[in-house]
């Protein structure tokens, strides 16, 4: 048994207290440690992704206790890819935070950042529902601190809403876990998959309630309408690097839905029939529409980006809720795209704020560093709106293709295409107000011109944008990998037997009792 798989959790968990205790007053050392930690995390994540690329399921038993009794970490293609995505995103976010000086506007940015990474990594790697809850709480409590980093009234007020909404979500999660445990007597995902399949059709009331509660919890995390109300103001008010990191947090919800509803409650299970196609799919379509209408209606750039995140999560959820191998593969491709594009846009909106002083979409004098910021916004907006040639277009194409056989195919096509049009108009409006009309507004006398954003900020945003380009250029490879990933998700037996049948040091293998 190798110990590599526990490193993505242990490493940030060690770096964070070290930053707090040893480098408290030295922002330079904090930055160096944080960047080094993230670089090491990327190396570990690459190793894990390579290890699981051939379909190997890596199992790690905490304290060498066998599965239903001990806590397990499991790495398969999906979780290692999400870990890698998080680590890569974290690198550019931390570079931006350093470059723009955001990390020095409040205290403990880097420590909280590492704790947040620990929670996200743990949520992706755990094989146990209760531990999923615990890691959700770890990432949430770190995100509360990050959300109100640098203070300010508007941010604190948005922070209160964000914290309260998530506390309610956590309580719902506990109710769901309680009812699952009462029905099945286990919380290990692989063990649950076996036991839920054994529940007869006459005794499904409890497990149905649990499945719906669990879906609600993950839908809150994924900001699916009507559970999206926490997202716009908290993402808009959060410091830009934090909002960019939060781009992966909605994906934690999407990941949890994919994991739980392919393994524990697979789509052909009679107990939860109708949950995806009757409830989740229409909600996802509405989120897509509301998100993109919000893009058009937003009066400030940060809200515009927040709504575009809701819209792209709607797109991801549309694809997930079809629950065919093709649609999950398309959803996974789109998840990578949407994380990178959302994060890039949040950082770009901070570039605009740095060079302009505010984010109101009104006619104002020209932004410092106009041409480069405008070019980056142009690329980011094309990606997010789903115009060719970037990965948003390919992702939407894959989703539309996967939706071809659905009963609601007409609705999906109409809403996806119309909402794309609306978001194109919204982004075009914002871009032309910010960058083109500004040329016609004469700068007022006596107002000092704001400095250009730092070069490192541009490097970070440029890195994210070039990853988007790479995601487009290598779309064939990425998509064939996500296809194998979804094949592994739809054939969970190797995962389940690996987790359930691997003996621990203190328990004998089955049959020896």
């Amino acid at each position, binding site marked *: 048994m190798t110990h590599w798989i526990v490193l993505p959790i242990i490493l940030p968990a060690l770096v964070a207290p070290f930053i707090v205790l040893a480098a408290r007053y030295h922002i330079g050392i904090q930055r160096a440690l944080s960047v080094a930690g993230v670089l090491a995390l990327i190396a570990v994540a690459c190793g894990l992704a390579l290890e699981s690329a051939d379909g190997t399921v890596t199992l790690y038993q905490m304290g060498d206790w066998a599965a239903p009794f001990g806590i397990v970490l499991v790495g398969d293609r999906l979780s290692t890819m999400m870990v890698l995505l998080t680590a890569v995103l974290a690198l550019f976010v931390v570079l931006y935070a350093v470059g723009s000086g955001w990390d020095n506007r409040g205290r403990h940015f880097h420590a909280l950042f590492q704790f947040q990474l620990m929670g996200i990594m743990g949520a992706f790697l755990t094989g146990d529902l209760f531990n999923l809850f*615990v890691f959700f709480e770890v990432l949430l409590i770190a995100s509360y601190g990050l959300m109100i980093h640098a203070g300010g009234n508007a941010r604190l007020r948005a*922070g209160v809403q964000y914290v309260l909404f998530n506390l309610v979500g956590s*309580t719902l999660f*506990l109710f769901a876990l*309680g009812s699952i*445990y009462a029905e099945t007597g286990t919380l290990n995902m692989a063990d649950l998959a076996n036991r839920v399949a054994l529940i007869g059709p006459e005794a499904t009331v409890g497990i149905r309630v649990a499945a719906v509660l669990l879906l609600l919890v993950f839908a809150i995390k994924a900001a699916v309408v009507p559970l999206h109300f926490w997202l716009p103001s908290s993402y808009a008010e959060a410091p830009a690097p934090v909002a960019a990191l939060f781009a992966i947090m909605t994906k934690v919800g999407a990941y949890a839905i994919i994991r739980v509803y392919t393994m524990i409650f697979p789509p052909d299970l009679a107990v939860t029939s109708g949950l995806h196609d009757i409830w989740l799919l229409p909600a996802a379509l509405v989120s897509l529409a509301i998100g993109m209408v919000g893009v058009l209606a937003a009066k400030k750039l940060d809200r515009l980006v927040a709504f575009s995140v809701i819209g792209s999560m709607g797109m991801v959820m549309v694809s997930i809720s079809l629950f065919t191998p093709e649609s999950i593969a398309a959803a996974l491709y789109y998840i990578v795209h949407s994380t990178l594009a959302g994060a890039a846009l949040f950082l770009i909106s901070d570039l605009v704020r740095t060079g302009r002083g505010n984010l109101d979409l009104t006619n104002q004098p020209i932004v410092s560093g106009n041409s480069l910021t405008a070019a980056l916004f142009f690329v980011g907006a094309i990606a997010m709106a789903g115009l060719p040639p970037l990965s948003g277009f390919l992702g939407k194409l894959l989703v539309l293709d996967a939706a071809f056989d659905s009963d609601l195919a007409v609705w999906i096509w109409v809403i996806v295409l119309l909402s794309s049009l609306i978001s194109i108009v919204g982004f075009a409006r914002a871009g032309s107000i910010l960058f083109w009309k500004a040329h016609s507004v004469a700068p007022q006398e006596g107002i000092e011109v704001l400095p250009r954003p730092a070069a490192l900020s541009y490097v970070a945003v440029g890195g994210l944008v070039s990853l988007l380009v790479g995601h487009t250029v290598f779309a064939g490879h990425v998509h064939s990998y996500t296809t194998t990933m979804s094949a592994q998700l739809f054939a969970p037996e190797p995962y389940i037997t690996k987790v359930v049948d691997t003996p621990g040091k203190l328990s004998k293998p089955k049959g020896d009792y």
Partner: protein
Amino acid sequence: MEMLVASAIGILTAGGIYLLLRLRTFPVIMGISLLTYAVNVFLFASGRLTIGASPILQDGIEAYADPLPQALVLTAIVISFGMTAVVVMISLGAFLGSDDDHVDDQSQNHDDRSEGTL
């Protein structure tokens, strides 16, 4: 006893949700506390209700209490306690900063709101 525990959970949840739908931070935080109490009792009951039963394997004992929900409840209590402390501090900061303890989003037109509508 089942009736008693079930109605306790129900009343706590109902009270919690009622308070949660208030618009000021203090009742909302109270509501969340009530909800976490409800969920703690609920988790506790998810391992079946037993009286005086031992949670550890011993010779000659037939009935056991399930120890796992007790561990889960401990975790849940610690987490919700910490979270409540965090939310109290953040909402106190927000209240002291803007002199307004409303939870809903009014910050954008806050300036032109007259005192009478509060």
